[in-house]
């Protein structure tokens, strides 16, 4: 063929017109398909330009008409068009989208039942490409027909067809119900057999197995069986496979099993081996190496025992070495930072190891990385490392190199980066030296206050959290600085935030605000007691125990002030809130009421309540009577309290109250044991505050209090 003519025939526009023209003969079309396929294989730029020229719908239309034809000549067209569709979809999301939009999927699926095995193979390959993408349609396992079809795929002789079956599972199985259906249909057994198959079958089967057992202990025990020997051994064996990808997938499958059922994979040696394999895989320059770090992270996350093993196996050192070796791709840095974050989340030994290896500067460098995921991961790592109270106390994190880039990330475009940065800042501001003013001077407080008004609840929560920690044991000038930026009205809105978790942090913030110097209590009385009223309302209406606890602690701290504060408390809703909470705790129809009544009675609450029967505040008086009524009617079989109403009795009940306060574990279990007991105990303490107040109260004319 002359060179000039060939180059014209290779022009994309010509190729497309030959594909879509009805006038050209079958042979020409076949040639054009072949040419297209060869041009786009492994070439994203070519794929994209052909997609833009509308090549995909033409190919799919050839595929569908060839599928409808019954003659033998259509077979080659089917093979070529199916392969071309697969090439478009291979590793290229825009290609998958174009292929799906053009309606290729159902045609390919029906070709799986084609009599010609080559056609079956070609369509299975293409469908597998599609199933590598998130865009692939979800397969409905719950329809009986679909399940039968899936089983037939897994039982097929052709490895591409069985691989397709496994890919469908990895892609579409999400819920526990689906996992159970698949397990009931015998899929696990079939996948287990495929572990002995070809490389492609092994990998696909490992991935599906991990998907089917993920987070489902019932399915795990079905898979591993009563003796749990063979299946587990088969997977463990593959962690030593010669192919890195197979080793990785086998590790991920074991991790899925362990994460779903901690009773398997108990052997410490095996767990350490698994970590070492993953570390070794980090040397792989490609995707396998990237995923290895994430796999390690999912293995050790939240599991202190495994973090300890990892520490003993020098995993901190290895990960740090990788970081130091750099430069690395974004995905790799992200994975390593997240794995380090998990390692340092609980164990001080890991944190101090990381700090001693001088890696913190690499973490701070990553705070300004181009990739948002890396920036977020660096923040999360910083957050974990800064959980070290020893280093917080030494002021190790309060320096420009760390604080400045972290504060800049508060303006980041990505919400997840902002939230992660707030998390790290929340820890770093827990600062015991006299450096807290640094944060106020550099404008952090202003930004935190701004973020506490965000529409995003996660940002509001974390900003309030940071402010709460910043307020912890801070001196008067710091408090003044923070409160000046925050204002009583913003603080009130935070206390009344729709999210209970934000309310909790806001109340804890106020609790810290009124701690320390007695004068700081005045803050809650500003603007006609705006803050105190909001707290009172929250304490009466809050549903979440954590919110109530923080609210009560604020009131308790206020009640520890001078007489004016105590009386102001008296005047405000404190006693009402406390008695309301008592009323609620002893509410007759609630199942544990009689149990709680017994506890409160033993703590001497009834005698205390009796002294409040003529409380000057009508609301309190009524609530006290309700509460007392509930104490009387509650059928209890415990011995009556031994509290006498004399001076010694007073002492005794104080001690009893503290007993309740200090020894929650002492109490028999309630529905929500510790929290309930703590609230109850807190109430007892509060009421004892009032006991002191009542004495002076009686001598004060009622009208002078108002």
């Amino acid at each position, binding site marked *: 063929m002359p060179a000039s003519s060939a180059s014209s025939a290779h022009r994309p526009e010509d190729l497309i017109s030959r594909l879509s023209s009805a006038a050209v003969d079958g042979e020409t079309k076949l040639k054009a398909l072949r040419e297209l396929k060869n041009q786009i294989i492994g070439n994203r730029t070519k794929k994209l330009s052909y997609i833009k020229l509308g090549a995909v719908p033409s190919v799919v239309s050839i595929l569908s008409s060839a599928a409808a034809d019954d003659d033998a000549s259509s077979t080659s067209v089917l093979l070529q068009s199916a392969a071309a569709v697969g090439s478009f979809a291979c590793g290229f999301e825009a290609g998958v989208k174009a292929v799906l939009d053009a309606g290729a999927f159902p045609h390919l699926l029906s070709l799986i039942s084609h009599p010609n095995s080559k056609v079956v193979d070609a369509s299975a390959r293409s469908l597998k490409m599609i199933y590598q993408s998130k865009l692939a349609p979800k397969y409905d396992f719950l329809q009986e027909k679909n399940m039968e079809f899936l089983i037939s795929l897994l039982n097929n002789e052709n490895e591409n067809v069985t691989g397709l079956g496994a890919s469908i599972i990895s892609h579409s199985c999400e819920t526990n119900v689906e996992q159970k259906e698949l397990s009931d249909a015998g899929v696990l057994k079939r996948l287990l057999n495929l572990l002995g198959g070809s490389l492609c079958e092994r990998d696909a089967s490992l991935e599906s197995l991990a998907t089917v057992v993920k987070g489902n202990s019932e399915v795990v025990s079905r898979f591993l069986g009563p003796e749990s020997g063979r299946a587990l051994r088969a997977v463990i064996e593959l962690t030593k496979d010669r192919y890195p990808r197979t080793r990785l997938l086998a590790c991920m499958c074991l991790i899925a099993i362990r994460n779903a059922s901690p009773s398997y994979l108990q052997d410490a040696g095996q767990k350490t081996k698994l970590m070492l394999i993953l570390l070794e895989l980090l040397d792989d320059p490609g995707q396998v190496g990237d995923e290895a770090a994430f796999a390690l992270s999912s293995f050790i996350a939240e599991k202190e025992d495994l973090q300890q093993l990892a520490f003993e196996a020098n995993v901190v050192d290895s990960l740090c070495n990788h970081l130091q070796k750099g430069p690395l791709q974004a995905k790799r840095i992200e994975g390593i930072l997240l794995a380090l974050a998990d390692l340092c989340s609980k164990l001080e030994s890991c944190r101090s190891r990381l700090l001693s290896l001088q890696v913190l500067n690499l973490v701070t460098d990553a705070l300004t990385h181009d990739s948002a995921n890396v920036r977020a991961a660096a923040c999360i790592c910083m957050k974990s490392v800064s959980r070290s109270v020893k280093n917080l106390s030494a002021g190790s994190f309060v320096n420009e190199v760390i604080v400045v880039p972290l504060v800049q990330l508060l303006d980041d475009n990505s919400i997840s980066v902002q939230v992660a940065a707030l998390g790290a800042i929340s820890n770093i501001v827990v600062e015991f030296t006299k450096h807290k003013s640094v944060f106020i001077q550099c404008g952090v407080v202003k930004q935190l206050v701004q973020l506490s008004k965000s529409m995003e609840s996660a940002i509001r929560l974390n900003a309030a959290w940071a402010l709460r920690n910043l307020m912890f044991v801070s001196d008067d000038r710091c408090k003044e600085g923070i409160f000046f930026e925050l204002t009583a009205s913003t603080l009130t809105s935070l206390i009344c935030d729709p999210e209970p978790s934000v309310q909790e942090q806001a109340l804890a913030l106020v*609790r810290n605000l009124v701690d320390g110097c007695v004068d700081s209590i005045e803050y809650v009385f500003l603007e006609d007691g705006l803050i105190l009223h909001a707290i009172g309302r929250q304490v009466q209406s809050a549903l979440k125990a954590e919110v109530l606890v923080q609210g009560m602690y604020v009131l308790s701290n206020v009640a520890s002030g001078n007489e004016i504060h105590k009386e102001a408390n008296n005047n405000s809703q404190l006693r009402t809130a406390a008695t309301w909470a008592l009323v609620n705790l002893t509410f007759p129809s609630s199942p544990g009421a009689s149990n709680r009544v017994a506890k409160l009675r033993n703590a001497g609450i009834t005698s205390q309540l009796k002294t409040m029967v003529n409380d000057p505040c009508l609301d309190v008086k009524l609530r006290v009577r309700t509460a007392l009524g509930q104490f009387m009617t509650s059928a209890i079989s415990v011995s009556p309290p031994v509290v006498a109403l004399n001076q010694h009795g007073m002492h005794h009940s104080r001690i009893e109250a503290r007993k309740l306060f200090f020894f929650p574990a*002492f109490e028999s279990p309630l529905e929500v044991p510790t929290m309930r007991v703590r609230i109850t105990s807190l109430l007892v303490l509060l009421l004892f505050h009032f006991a002191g107040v009542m004495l002076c109260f009686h001598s004060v004319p009622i009208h002078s209090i108002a």
Partner: protein
Amino acid sequence: MPVRVVENSAPSQVSGANPGHTSPPACTLLSVGQAFSGTQNVSSLQKDEAWRVNVRIQGCDLDHGYLCGTMEALNVPMADTPVVTFWEGEIVDAKNHTFFTGKWEATSEVDIRHWTKFPSFSPLLSQVEVDGGRSLDLSSYPYIFMRWKEQYFVNVGTDCGLTIAGFYYVCFSCSDGSINGFYYDPNSSPFQKLELKSNHEGRWGYSFSSYELQ
């Protein structure tokens, strides 16, 4: 100042195959932010001397039997300013730590000699002699035993002429928040007594601050 005993029940021994999985009581008075003040008696044969001491709890992690904070010594003769140190504490919880120190030059005989200085330790003695208290259930005992070890000077250099080589045997009373301790350092005068009380910091009652790490 006499310490009021809440409940004089001797601690029970843990039964069953899962010994030592009961932490000491979570005590609000031993939570982060709480302040204590008192004295440390540093008298020697030559002269009577006591330094005023302030302590603040900075971190508490009962799961790991860990406590930490700062200790400020006020009228130290050779220092111009108060000397602040950071200390870390081991809570004797039979899970993370027993009554036997096993380090810091403290033999079990030294341990027993110091622990028995605390009256509240006597009900525990016989069991501690057997196994360091590993099988004791301290979860409802109204006293918390600890070792506090100073780690570094916060505001002065190591050349300040002071030493933090030793450590404290500490007994905390859950009922009133009082702390008693004995400093142990083979090279310092023996049984220097630390006596601290919950510091109300000008309040008529107890105030509780809190932080939470993410």
